[in-house]
């Protein structure tokens, strides 16, 4: 008895190969790193926005305290 194992290949019959189209997923997304300039610009913008908000808040509170109170 030989130790070799022979592969089995079908000699007759029809070989079917069916390509089943399926729905596709979106691919994983590597995030681009930000350049130093962009980071700096975003930081400056954010600081400015925070400052505006702070100033507006201050104006509001001052405005409220100046309101005459009717009691």
């Amino acid at each position: 008895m030989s130790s070799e194992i022979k592969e089995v290949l079908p000699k007759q019959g029809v070989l079917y190969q069916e390509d089943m189209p399926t729905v596709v997923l979106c691919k994983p997304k590597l995030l681009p790193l930000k350049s130093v300039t962009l980071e700096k610009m975003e930081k400056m913008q954010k600081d400015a926005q925070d400052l505006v908000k702070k100033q507006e808040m201050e104006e509001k509170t001052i405005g409220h305290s100046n309101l005459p109170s009717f009691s």
Partner: protein
Amino acid sequence: MDPMFLAYSYFRRRKYQKCDEICSQLLEKNPYDQSAWALKTRALTGQVYVDEVDVDEEGIAEMVMDDNAIATVARPGTSLRKPGTGQGLPSQGVRPVTNSGRPVSGFVRPGTQSGRPGTMEQAIRTPRTAHTARPVTSASGRFVRLGTASMLSTPDGPFINLARLNFSKYAARPNLAKALFEYIFHHENDVRNALELASLATEACQFKDWWWKVQLAKCYYRLGMFRESESQLKSAIKQQEMIDSFLYLGKVYVRLDQPLRAVDIYKQGLEKFPGETTLLTGIARIHEGLNEMDDAVKFYKDVLHFDNMHVEAIACIATHHFYTDQPEVALKFYRRLLQMGVYNTELFNNLGLCCFYAQQYDMTLTCFERALSLADDTTSGDVWFNIGHVALGIGDVNLAYQCFRMSLASNNDHAEAYNNLGVLELRRGHIEEARAFFQASFVLAPHMYEPHYNFAALADQLGDLQSSYNAAKRAVDAYEGHVDSKELIQQLKQHFTLL
């Protein structure tokens, strides 16, 4: 200590706020103290200074009504608007694209965030999603916002009243004029006055100072007068060859949509300054813009040869490797970035993805946890989206579903997450929900082919052949080489002819 000396020391250490305060005190004592005045000008400029070579914000008006480009129908590979067919570029089925139809880059700079849209319709549609709002013109964009930002910090009015300034007096004094120009250009953001001062100053020195020519070119560029800018820069280079001048000239040609000319200019610069990384990066960026990824990576590798800490080059090469089936190589590059001290959401997210696809499962979730803890509103959606992919990879569909939901919770316009949710719903057999998700996805991001194709396939199965055909057409428009969409169209055409 002498306050002036202290102010200079603060200026050198970039503590501009403190320097500004001391100078203000000095100026209160003696309003005619020129050195304090000049130092304060420079300190105020330093607060808002950004490298002008890197800044490039295009508004809708500049992009769509651009009449500077020479050829309206350029040959492929010679224009940034119609990039070449792309050799060495992974297909869109592997590497996602931005809304201008260009593969996502590994690095963003101001102005490269969303690319050039092809049509007016596309340009107007883009700002609808909250995260990519684009100014109407660059005159209403970030420049102005930065300018007004600087006004805020001085409640008692601006430091220098430009309207009452006698420019010709200052132009004749080079020591003051240069500081004043930078203040007007960067801090006040008043390009017209800056241009006036620069033209007077360049006259005052009999057109012998290259610096003023470069500044004139900067002003012309901002005003959209690219040909004038070009001639000033050429004259400046003739007088004194400087890296900056070459970079600006390249930038002008990119804006005129002559990428090959820009590459020529950078190469001229490289002859004079061999191994200058900024010039090499410029060439690489143009190749990337033209979809010539092989060449781009070659130049990025050249950059790393001269400067092995160059973040942009490392990131771009890593992205290229990741999308060409070599996540383990990409992992090495991203790890290098981590060693260099880059520490943000984007990097950890990329590391997590690379680890997962390079089969280093022990690190994957740790990286994503780190990414989430560092994430802000703009990035957490993307991070959750990628975690969803990891969940899909290990077969945990429920976790994936929740991740994509989380992605939508932090960014309601995340088109990719909508598409993937649609696929998951379809697997569960919820056809109506799936349909709604696909629809939401392609309305938000018409540049992606996936939702179009999915919608078409679903509609085909439901028997709604007409909308299937339309959607498949849109899929092919977004991605010409998509075989399944083409086959679907073929089938549908056969159906229609039989009817």
